[in-house]
């Protein structure tokens, strides 16, 4: 009986004779065990390679970048045609763009998710919306850049500006926020809603006062991962917001800004002083990675803490 389930070639031999079959079985058990061990080693190895890739990249960036970091590097603008000085305008620009992207993307995403989880009934329109969200999540970042250029910069005449860049980034991170919010809203127990509705509270009040506050920590930690993405993207802001160099900080949302990712790209690929400015490049890379992964790490830690704390 048990022969049959192994499904390999030695099942043909099972009718040959008891002694042979027994020897076969011993051989086969050993073989099955060896195969399993080989598989486990391969699988562990692939996990190890991924961990080493992350560790190697981070370690390399920290070792090479730490020497460039100083208070002046963080707080001064670039000088001498960007071969010396700091990166303060790029840090400020990235903060503005990211805050703008959250301010637009978070409300839009959360409200979309509320409709999809609390109000929508399954049907064709909902299906179209969900496919739309999935497709939006798959749009290449450079196409978002083209869209921002064609629509916000040219069609709506915002020019290359914080506004155009933030709007472009907000649509880029919207699918992430919707996904995180949907998951958090679905995790709110149905009994919470039923208890509230049974007290005569309207559906909207229930959603606003009971469901949303319960889901909020989950929504926020999930969304933080999207925020990290907004801070680190380069292609969407290349044609919509990022300036090669600005001496002054932006005065309004219609100004161009420097941004950390674009600054790295410019220093590493353009100009004649690529080798000379390596320390600046490593420093900028370290600041960007610390910013983005710092944000992500906070989200990951809070989330695992919340999972342990969960009371229902």
């Amino acid at each position, binding site marked *: 009986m048990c022969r049959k389930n192994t499904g390999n070639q030695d099942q043909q031999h099972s009718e040959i004779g008891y002694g042979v079959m027994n020897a076969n079985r011993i051989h086969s058990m050993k073989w099955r065990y060896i195969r*399993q061990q080989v598989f486990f080693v391969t699988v562990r190895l692939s996990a190890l390679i*991924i961990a080493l890739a992350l560790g190697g990249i981070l370690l390399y960036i920290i070792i090479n970048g730490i020497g460039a970091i100083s208070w002046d590097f963080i707080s001064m603008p670039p000088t001498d045609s960007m071969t010396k000085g700091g990166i303060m305008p790029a840090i400020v620009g990235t903060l503005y763009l990211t805050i703008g992207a959250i301010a637009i993307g978070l409300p839009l995403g959360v409200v979309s998710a509320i*409709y999809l989880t609390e109000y929508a009934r399954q049907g064709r329109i909902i299906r179209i*919306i969900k496919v739309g969200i999935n497709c*939006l999540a798959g*749009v290449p970042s450079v196409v978002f850049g083209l869209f921002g250029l064609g629509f916000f910069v040219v069609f709506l005449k915002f020019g290359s500006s914080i506004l155009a860049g933030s709007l472009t980034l907000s649509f880029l991170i919207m699918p992430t926020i919707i996904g995180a919010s949907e998951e958090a809203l679905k995790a709110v127990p149905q009994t919470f809603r039923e208890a509230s509705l049974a007290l005569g509270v*309207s*559906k909207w009040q229930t959603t606003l006062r009971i469901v949303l506050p319960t889901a909020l920590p989950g929504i926020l930690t999930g969304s933080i991962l999207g925020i990290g*993405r907004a801070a680190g993207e380069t292609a969407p802001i290349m044609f919509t917001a990022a300036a090669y160099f600005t001496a002054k900080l932006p005065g309004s949302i219609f100004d161009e800004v420097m941004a950390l990712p674009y600054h790295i790209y410019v220093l590493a690929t353009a100009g004649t002083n690529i080798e000379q400015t390596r320390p600046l490049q490593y420093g900028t890379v370290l600041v960007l990675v610390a910013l983005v992964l710092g944000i*992500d790490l906070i989200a990951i830690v809070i989330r695992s803490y919340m999972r342990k704390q969960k009371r229902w």
Partner: protein
Amino acid sequence: MSRHTKEKLIKYVLFLFALVSVLVLGLIVFSLFREGLPIFKKVSLYDFIFGLEWYPTSDPPLFGIFPLIVGSVVVTLISSLMAVPLGVLSAIYIAEIAPASVKEILKSIIELLAGIPSVVLGFFGMVVIAPWLQNTFDLPTGLNIINASVILAVMAIPTISSISEDALYAVPREFKEASYALGATKFETITRVIIPSALSGISTAVILGMSRAIGETMVVLMVAGGSAAIPESLFDSVRPMPASIAAEMGEAPYRGLHYQALFATGIVLFSLTLIFNLIADYVSEKYRQSGSATL
């Protein structure tokens, strides 16, 4: 206003918000076509897609993006050769084999890997992998297909791993238990029961990972080398579509032919990723395994 009308009104307002994603998708198509379509008055669609020469600034300019398409396809395929096994195997390890503590750490590692900005990975390829390739294989440049593929694989692994992992978790417990009860080893259960049941989800993961790789911009812009010719070896440099768009848009005169050609390249790139995503969506919907009862 009665409570009933108010509730209805709220529902409609929320519905409008939910439509924003679809609306944005529509606006993307609108913007790309508005800026890109005029090129086809000058160049036929066939010549644009199958033209072998991309000399947008010569006189007369030549707009054939075939070498760019080949560049994109080549780096995507080669990166998948690395990313698919690593992504799927690591997902199997996380979902089926790893002890709980290792599982948590590994999931965080993959999430952090996904969080590294693409420009940082591109930079890493430029300063670490490129010189190494150049010295080891004695090449004129280390910015080539191999370099770009390795870095793209790093970017695609988190996508493939996390979606595959979800698919593996979704396999009903009863399947596993039935398999163990019949005397199957863990290896046999994984390869003959769990993976086949999760295959649609794993396929979705692979398609989405490849879609991510083909659309990734900064990495191919910084480490693929930028030569707009059809490559002959893995050490040749290429100019995938996103790299071409990002590198040239800054210099292309506003609404000139070159500008339009870059938007048209964007249309091709967008259509490719859209097809990938629709296939992924179709596969995951059609073969969705919602419980043991449906098999």
